[in-house]
């Protein structure tokens, strides 16, 4: 049954990866990468149980936090055009 859960998580990761490659806007790609990261946390946890060594849970814990920090950093980068200055320039949008 762990195999079924692992396969389902892998299929979901593949679908999210297809959306990340095909996404029309940059926000679709960021959303898909966020979902991919969450499913990676689940995959690490389930795979640890599948192989009978649930020692990977520390890695899953750290990955959940780093994924959140990374997503917020990338969002701020694309919203303001930089990471250091807070809302100095209003982002001029150009479609495409």
């Amino acid at each position, binding site marked *: *049954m762990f195999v*079924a*859960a692992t396969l389902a998580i892998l299929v979901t990761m593949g679908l999210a990866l297809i*959306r990340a490659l095909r996404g029309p806007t940059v*926000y679709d790609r960021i959303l898909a990468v*966020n*979902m991919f990261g969450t499913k990676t946390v689940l995959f690490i946890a389930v795979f640890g149980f599948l192989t009978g060594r649930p020692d990977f849970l520390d890695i899953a*814990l750290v990955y959940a936090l780093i994924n959140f920090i990374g997503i917020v950093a990338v969002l701020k980068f694309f919203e303001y055009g930089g990471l250091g200055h807070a809302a100095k320039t209003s982002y001029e*949008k150009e479609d495409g």
Partner: protein
Amino acid sequence: MAMIVDVLSWVFLLTGSFLGISGGFGMLRFPDFFTRLHAAGVTDTLCAALILLGLMMQAGWGLVAVKLLFIILFLSFTSPVAAHALARAALHGGLKPLLNRAEEDPSKS
């Protein structure tokens, strides 16, 4: 008693897997960014919580269950915050929600 916990944990794991796959298909099939955000945001919380709860029932009491509980806590805090930040950034970046498909130009994709 152990049998009941085992069956319940399998039910949680399979329900979480089904929700994950449905979220992935919604991610691929929905027409708009905000609908995709709905698909991803709903399944990120419930799918992750169900799968980790099933694993917690398999592990029994101990350090592993505490680690899984911490993963559930962190995910249930960070995933809605990330979804909210994404929606706000998309609105700030000039992405409009798709309100009516009949009147809208096919400018979206």
